[in-house]
């Protein structure tokens, strides 16, 4: 039986997390079908069909999927998913929201946030904020899985030519309604897909200083900006900047932690970065235990100096 990937998209195009999830699905050794549920989502369906390794695309075009409400999306996935051995979606805020509903309605366990696949019923997933890795085995008929995107390479976005099949939606539950959203606007790369991340902590002292010190450095490095929970709680930056156990999990080529002491919960979100740089005045800060390069000193002097030194 094939594996079903529920695509994350913005109706026009596919989000990068979908590509990583297709790679995970392909490891199961079965043909991969991608479901695109959206509103006027022709563009996203075409983009899904172009992903290398995808055998079929199902397109459910209905106003009920405009905002990816969990109640509506889960009802559709349950209807479609019964013919598949595995149902996978990225462990993003959308996937984490609807997928457990799917599992409950199918009466199967969900395997959350997998980071490795041993075989088609055995998976690795982090527990205790990544301080331990559990290998779990599922005997359920359908395996419902969310995938940690940083643990799987992105599938090629082009080269595929899968047929697109239009399917009916499953209606509007009428239980929930979208009211509005406040999304952070930024010209910078997305945090979870950035090659370089400049991240700040509470030691920056204020939202103004955070902006003043980190933005010029991020500009020079074409980096995304992240933050520790403490910096978000203090109101320096919005919630979607948070990197950590309960925020975003990132694994860029270069992660520069500025004024971040390195609480376990923060390390859980960034310790798979290829190269980690820490700048902190406390030489004993736990962040130095995982940093490749540590610089001890006053960040208010060192960060502008670093910005200047980078050509």
């Amino acid at each position: 039986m094939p594996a079903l990937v529920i695509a994350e998209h913005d109706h026009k195009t596919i989000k990068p997390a979908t590509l990583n999830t297709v790679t995970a699905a392909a490891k199961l050794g079965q043909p991969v079908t991608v479901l695109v549920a959206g509103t006027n989502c022709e563009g996203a369906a075409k983009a899904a069909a172009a992903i290398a390794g995808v055998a079929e695309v199902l397109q459910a075009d209905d106003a009920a999927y405009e905002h990816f409400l969990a109640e509506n999306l889960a009802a559709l996935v349950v209807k479609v998913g019964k013919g598949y051995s595995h149902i996978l979606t990225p462990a993003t805020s959308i996937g984490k929201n609807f997928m457990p509903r799917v599992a409950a309605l199918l009466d199967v366990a969900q395997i959350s946030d997998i980071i490795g696949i041993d075989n088609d019923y055995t998976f690795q997933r982090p527990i205790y904020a990544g301080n331990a890795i559990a290998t779990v085995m599922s005997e359920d008929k359908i395996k419902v899985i969310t995938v940690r995107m940083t643990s799987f390479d992105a599938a090629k976005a082009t080269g595929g030519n899968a047929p697109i099949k239009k399917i009916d939606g499953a209606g509007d539950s009428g239980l929930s309604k979208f009211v509005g959203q406040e999304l952070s606007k930024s010209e910078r790369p997305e945090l979870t897909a950035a090659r370089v991340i400049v991240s700040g902590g509470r030691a920056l002292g204020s939202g103004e200083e955070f902006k003043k010190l980190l933005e010029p450095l991020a500009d020079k490095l074409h980096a995304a900006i992240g933050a520790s929970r403490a910096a978000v709680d203090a109101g320096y930056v919005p919630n979607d900047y948070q990197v950590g156990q309960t925020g975003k999990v990132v694994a860029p080529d270069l992660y520069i932690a500025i004024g971040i002491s390195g609480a376990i919960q923060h390390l859980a979100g960034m310790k798979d970065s290829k190269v980690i740089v820490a700048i902190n005045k406390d030489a004993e800060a736990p962040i130095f235990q995982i940093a490749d390069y540590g610089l001890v000193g006053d960040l208010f002097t060192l960060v502008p100096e670093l910005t200047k030194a980078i050509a």
Partner: protein
Amino acid sequence: MKILVPVKRVVDFNVKVRVKADQSGIELANVKMSINPFDEIAVEEAVRLKEKNVAQEVVAVTLGPQACTDTLRTAMAIGADRAIHVVTDSELQPLGVAKALQKIAEKEKPDLIIMGKQAIDDDCNQTGQMLAALLNWPQGTFASKLEPGSGTVKVAREVDGGLETLELKLPAVITTDLRLNEPRYASLPNIMKAKKKPIESIAPDALGVDLRPRLKTQKVVEPPKRKAGIKVPDVATLVDKLKNEAKVI
């Protein structure tokens, strides 16, 4: 309005956990246990709604061994009125817990269920969504603000791009994110008062649901260790290393 708040007893968030030598799990002997931090936020939110006269009763519920009574007492010290304890020593997983909570919700008939978005031990982030599905109720996950209205609740949610607001029909399930509120410290008089509040014990068999775990844990290991690197003396050395050694800039 009546609010049901499911809570879980977990290893305290400050404890550095250790993997057992036989790889069967995490060392739990003599480890400090606490209420799951997200569940504490859920209790606080429910109690605040009671203090604003939006809610009349707050009921805490848990599943687990006898020692979970402590967790229920913590919830009642914050302000929950009474508690329900499904007493079991068996391993529990989200689907089974959601099924048990469904039965309890059907009996208690709350207008809102508020619970943590995830437990900091298994990091599953499933139970609230599963419970909402089994009850066929709407869900407001990762909530950072709640505004109950008449027959509905508005919930601001923390999503990957920022914040999103939904309106849900009641009854509904809400799961809490970090910034919904800052839980109070329970005062000594309230801790004393909580000792006298009632806890109803229920045997799992009485619920008539299948609590058996669906996933088998084969082994639990430590993650690959990242070795500490070096300290560099100045910015010039750092830039040189990043360029010529790590080759990332």
